[in-house]
Structures are given as structure tokens and as C-alpha cells.
């Protein structure tokens, strides 16, 4: 089994809203897969279909070589899920909830549980209604991480955590990866995705717009170049693939498409390079580019022409 999740052409409508519009997603065994998209892009809907809570209108979804709707109960033995908005039973303590969820899945490792409670600084004696949002999320995280599931499905698991806990979370996910577990991580926190994920899928309006390793995605996008040359900057405006050019005497800054990098460097070397800083695009830049495209109307339909106004 090389793919833990394979989804293609997934469609789901709610009334007149088309929440998923032919979404594709492949998560390979042993990888941490980032699942990115703006609010309302369809991330949670996809996850709920994978969990067998919703049924797709069209397309196929396979999870752990099974059908998420038909084989839900059997598949759930092998996965653990952390929802984005965790609600707990008001009268059960955090510790009771963790134990219950773990036991239903066939037992949890008490040492691992104790270690995680300490690491996340969670008091398991409080009642569900007394926890803050972040602490409710910690309860669900501890329950998921102390299980021995093959696949972790995490839907914006850190949206309520403080930066210290965010670091603890990243450390824990690294450990899970080292144990060979597969993680589907839906997130808004791009630094988190960049630090953790082997591959990412970016979705927009129910469709996948990019998927691949960060390196692959970077190759498709622009690199920032800042250089100081030995002589005046050559005529570059109008060169294919060079954007946002700024020059002053012998200094320049610009953004270069992946395949225009080589010709540009050739031009610069001809003049002589004194210093050169090249920075690959951050995930944030890639991400924003997709949404800026979105907002500026690339591939616009009438519907989002309204957004542009």
C-alpha cells in the first residue's frame, strides 16, 4: 500500500453551494501531507468525507485501501482524528475523555499518555466545560497522539494553541513521522506546514490548484534575487520571467520565474557580481500568489468578478 489516501474528482454540494468541485488529493504512506486553503475552500468537507461522516455526490475517495463510507468502522480502527473545533462532553473530565476515546480504539499507551499530558501542560482533572478552546484541542490531540493509529487526520489542530504549545505540537508530529505514521495536516499556519510537511496540496474553491513537494512547488514559482554588480545594471526590463524589477546604480532587486533564473544569472555574471542573495519563495508567498491570482481575476468567472470590485 503506497497511498494512504487517494481522492479524485470529489464533488459535494450543499443545497446550491458547491463545496467540492472535483477535488484531487493523494497522501502517500509515511508522509506528512499539508492541506492548505482559505476558509471555506472545502478542507473540512473533504476530511468529513474521508471520515465517512458525509457522502460524496461524485468522484472517488479511498482511505487505507477501503471505502470511507462503506468500511467506516473498520477503517476508523486505524486512524485518529482531531477536529478543528473540538467540543467535549461538559461533565466528563479531559482525562476521562482521553481514556474513553483511546479504549474505543483498542487501548492506549499509559506512558505515552502521561508524557503527552505533561508535555502539553494539560490538567486532565478539569471538566469538559471548564477548558478553553486551546485546552479542548489539547485533549483531542493527546487522545489522537497516544493511540497507535496508522493515520492521523488533523483539521487545523493548532488554531487555539499558543506559540510554546505550537512548538510542542511540531515536535510531537516529527516523532510520529519518525515512527512511520502518516499525517494529513490541514492548516492555516504556513510556518507549521513548511516545518513539518513533506508534500502539500493547495486547494481553492473545492479544487486542488497545486500539489507536490515544497521543492517542486518552489520550482514552479519565483525566486527573489538581490544583487550588487561590478558595473551598471544591464537592461533587464522586458526580459521574460523577470518581475518587480528595482534598480539603483549597480544594485538590483527582482523576482524571477524558476526557468528564467539561468538566463538572468548569465546576464549578471557578464557585468560581474559583487554580492548575490537569492531566496527561494516562502510557502506564504506561494500561497498568497494563488489567492492574489484569485482576487485579481486570473481564470475569473462572473462570480468572483464581484469579489474584485
Amino acid at each position, binding site marked *: 500500500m503506497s497511498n494512504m489516501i487517494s481522492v479524485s474528482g470529489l464533488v459535494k454540494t450543499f443545497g446550491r453551494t458547491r463545496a467540492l468541485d472535483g477535488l484531487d488529493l493523494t497522501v502517500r504512506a509515511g508522509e506528512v501531507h499539508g492541506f492548505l486553503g482559505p476558509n471555506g475552500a472545502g478542507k473540512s468537507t473533504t476530511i*468529513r468525507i474521508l*471520515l*465517512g*461522516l*458525509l*457522502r460524496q455526490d461524485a468522484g472517488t475517495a479511498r482511505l487505507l485501501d477501503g471505502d470511507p463510507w462503506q468500511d*467506516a*468502522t*473498520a477503517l*476508523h*480502527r486505524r*486512524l485518529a*482524528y482531531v*477536529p478543528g*473545533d*473540538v*467540543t*467535549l*462532553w*461538559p*461533565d*466528563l*473530565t479531559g*482525562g*476521562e*475523555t*482521553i*481514556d*474513553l*476515546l483511546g*479504549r*474505543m*480504539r*483498542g487501548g492506549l499507551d499509559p506512558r505515552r499518555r502521561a508524557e503527552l499530558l505533561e508535555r502539553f501542560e494539560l*490538567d*486532565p*482533572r*478539569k*471538566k469538559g*466545560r*471548564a477548558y478553553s478552546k486551546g485546552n479542548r484541542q489539547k485533549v*483531542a490531540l493527546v487522545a489522537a497522539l497516544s493511540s497507535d493509529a496508522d493515520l492521523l487526520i488533523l483539521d487545523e489542530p493548532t488554531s487555539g494553541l499558543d506559540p510554546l504549545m505550537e512548538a510542542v505540537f511540531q515536535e510531537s508530529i516529527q516523532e510520529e513521522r519518525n515512527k512511520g505514521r502518516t499525517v494529513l495536516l490541514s492548516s492555516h499556519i504556513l510556518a507549521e506546514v513548511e516545518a513539518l510537511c513533506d508534500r502539500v496540496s493547495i486547494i481553492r474553491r473545492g479544487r486542488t490548484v497545486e500539489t507536490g513537494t515544497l521543492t517542486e512547488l518552489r520550482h514552479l514559482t519565483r525566486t527573489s534575487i538581490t544583487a550588487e554588480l561590478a558595473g551598471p545594471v544591464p537592461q533587464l526590463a522586458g526580459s521574460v520571467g523577470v518581475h518587480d524589477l528595482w534598480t539603483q546604480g549597480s544594485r538590483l532587486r527582482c523576482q524571477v520565474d524558476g526557468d528564467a533564473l539561468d538566463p538572468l544569472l548569465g546576464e549578471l555574471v557578464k557585468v560581474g557580481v559583487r554580492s548575490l542573495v537569492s531566496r527561494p519563495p516562502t510557502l506564504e508567498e506561494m500561497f498568497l500568489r494563488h489567492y492574489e491570482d484569485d482576487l485579481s481575476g486570473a481564470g475569473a468567472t462572473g462570480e468572483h468578478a464581484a469579489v474584485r470590485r
Partner: protein
Amino acid sequence: MSTLTGTGGLIRLILRRDRVRLPAWFGLVAMLVIGVASSVAAAYPTEEARQAFLHTTNGDPTQLMMIGPIYDSSAGGLAAWRVRGQAALLIALASLLLVIRSTRAEEEAGRSELLGSTVVGRHAALTAALTVAFAANLVTALVVALGLMGQGLPPRGSLVMGLSVAAAGWVFAAVAGLAAQLTESSRTAGGLAAMAMGILYAVRAGADVEKSSWVSWLSPFGWTQHMRPFAGDHYWPLLPVVGLILLLVAGAYRMSARRDLGAGILPPRLGPADAAPSLRTSIALAWRLQRGTLLAWAIAFTAFGAGLGGAARSAADQLNASEALRELIERMGGGGRPADGFFAFVIYLMSQVITLYAIQATLRLRAEEISGRADLILTGPVGRLRWAGGHLAIVAAGSGIVLAGLGVGMGLVHGLSTGDPGGEIARLVGASLTRLPSVLVLAAVSTLAYGLLPRLAAIIPYAALGLCLVLEFAVELLGADPSILQVSPFAQTPGLPVAAFTVTPLVLLTVVATGLTAVGLAGLRRRDLG
């Protein structure tokens, strides 16, 4: 900033949010009173007929218990009596739910925090909720008064009637305002207020059966009854009503001033860090979630049964004196003891009240689903059928336990007076449990609605239960053919201990309940969750 700043805005918010619910609940009460009044006049057109009815009723302990005595044989007097109990309970419930919904439930959901960060004073939410509740009751009183006057009833009596109905609503709005301060959970707060309502109604019922007028002054339901619309028209019993409301509201404000937002006066405690070994399945969780409600209902109905068992003796004496009723009981198939007639009737009535438990407990599934807590269970290796089945098994067993509790309470206390507690308990528990299939049909309607029409799940079963009650009104007052009662599952089970036991209707109702449940569960398996 004053502690009341923002009250006006919150009032508008409540009116906007409850723009359907508010007129529906309170309009229902007004329509009930006006509608019944007009049909009473038609059902008993002559003074003679009304006199006869008055004598039968005032000699019938079951009626004294459920509603109380009739004070006047005029058309207005009869009408005022006929709806008094239901109208008071219904409007009290409407006011109670309104206040809890707009105070503690908002706080529990965290929405008050959002509002509290804007320019809103600390007492504004409570004040707004109480203002809306008091105003809604006042409007209902006026609508009732106008409606009754429109039928040609005396204006003074009509107004007193309206106010006596509203007074019950006012008192329980204030009770709910206080209960909302006590606990963090709106469910518990609502339960506390409803329990107070049940106890106070039972006090009034006991007082009327025992003809003890000082006891009836212990209950607000007694006070509103003593306003005697169309039979003296007293305003002065509103004095204790206002006094109690002032006391309750003052208490609520004091507590609200002392506690933190979101907290209760009863402090939250730390619980165990590890789950008990038994908490390992979805059924164990369902039991954990349902047991508190079940325990409260079982205790309440055992106690209530004990009260009924205590009243049975004097009820039986009075029944003996009432020839009409003795005949009726004989026609129902029982020649036996008059006390049995009383028990058969109260078991019939109470089984309908216990149905509220069954519906409420079944709808727990919906609450778990929309809160997202069901996801935590259903994304584990638990199928939907197993998850729902656990809850439904508890509903079925729990309904049986509450019914049996009623029988135990009645049998124990009545048995002590007849000298055969063991035998009475066995007979009355058996009689109560005979009604279980009727209760389960309504629980099955809840499951059906939950599986197929989840958005309407909170309405359909209550409407179905309401229909069963309305049919009785229709038969009694509108002269509808009694055979339409056959639609009601409560008319199908035999009226033990008077009637003879027959197994066929029990089997049929069980089959119907199983079928409806199966269709509901099939719907649940097929549909999207959340």
C-alpha cells in the same frame, strides 16, 4: 457604565432570535384558552348541564388532582376551570425556557462573552430576558381577556382569567432567572426550574384532593387558582405572586453580581484524571450522559407516585360517592375497587408525561450530533447503529424504569394503607409497565424524525404527543367521534388495573415502535452527519 447598559439592544436581540418561537409558544397558550372557552359553552349549553357537570367534577378526585375544583357553573366558570391547569403549566414552561435560553444557554455557548465585550452591563442579559418574558405574559393576558370578552363573557372575569394565566408565567420566568445563576449548565438550570414547577403543581394537586386550603396557599398554582375568574374575580392573590417574584428576582441579581461570567454559584469541581475501567464503549458513554436525567425522572416519578398512592384512599372514598364515575369504571371493564379506577386514570395521564422523558432522551442523539461530539465517537471504530442503539436502549429501559418507579411509589404508599404493600406494588408496577409500548411508539417517532428529518427532529415528536392530547379535547368538548382516539397509542394499551390485560395491542404497538425505529435508523445510516 451602569449594570443595565445595553438592555434595550439585548431585548431586540431576543425578539429577533425568538421571532417565531415567542409568538408560537405564547400564542398557543392564548389560543388554547380562547378555543376551549368557546367549545365549553357549546358542549354544555344549559345551566342544568353545567350544574350536573360541576357536581360530577367536584366529586371526582382525578379531576381535583389534575385541575382542581370548579368554582362556578356559569359558562365562564367552566371554561376557566377546564383550561386552568394546562394553560398555567404551558405558559410557565414557555416562560422558563425563554429565560434560560436567553441567559444561561447564551452564556454557556460563549455568545454572552462576545456581547459582554461590547457596551453591555453585567445585569443587562438577565434584565432583558425577564423583561421580554414578563411582557410576553402580559400580552398573552390581554389577548386572552379580549378573546374571552369577544365571546360575550364578562369583562372583569375575562381580565382576571388572563392575569391568572400570566401570573403562572411571571412566577416561573423569575424562578428560571434564579436557576440560571446557580449552575454552569443550561440543561441543569432548566431541569431545576422545571423540577420546582412539578413540585409546586403537585402541592396544588395534593391540596385539592385533600381539600386542604392552607396547603394550596403554599403553591403559586394555588394562588392563581384562587383568583377565581368568573367566580368572584379576585385580584388580591396577585400580591403573593408579586412578592415572590420580587424575592426571586432580587436573589437572581445578587447572585449575578457576585459570580464570574460563565461560572455558577455552585462551584465546579475537579474530577478524576483517569476514566473508570467501565467507561470504554460508546454505550458506556451513552449511559454516563443519560443517567443523570434518568435518575432525576425516576426519583421524581417515584415520589409523585407515592403522593398519588397517598391520595388514593380519599380519592376512592369520593369515587364511591360518585355514581356516574362508578358506572364509568364498570363500563371500562372493572368491577373492582374504586381506587383501581383512580390508578388506571393517573397511570394513563402520567404515561403521557413520562413520554416527555422518552422524547427528550432520544433527542440527545441530535444534540450530540450538532454539537460535534458525536464526531469524536463516530470517527472511532463505532458504527452509527451502535452509537444510536446505545442511546435508544437506555431510552427504552429508562422509560420502563420511570414507569415502574411510578408504580412502586403508588403501590408502596397505597399498600401500607391497605396492609398489602407487596401485592399492591406488583399490581401497580405491572399496570404502569403495560403503558410502556405506548411511550415507546412516541420515542420511535422521535427516532424516525431524527433519522429522516433531522432539522425537524425537535418539533415532530412533541407535535405528535400534542396531537394525542388535542384529540382528547376534541372528543370531550367538540363532540368528535371517540373512535378518532384510536390514533393515539395511549388509547391502545389496556387501562390496568381496571381493564383486563390483553397482550395483542402491546405486541402490535411494540411492532410499530420497532418498525419506526428501524426506518429512522436506516435513514441515519444513509444521511450526512453534522
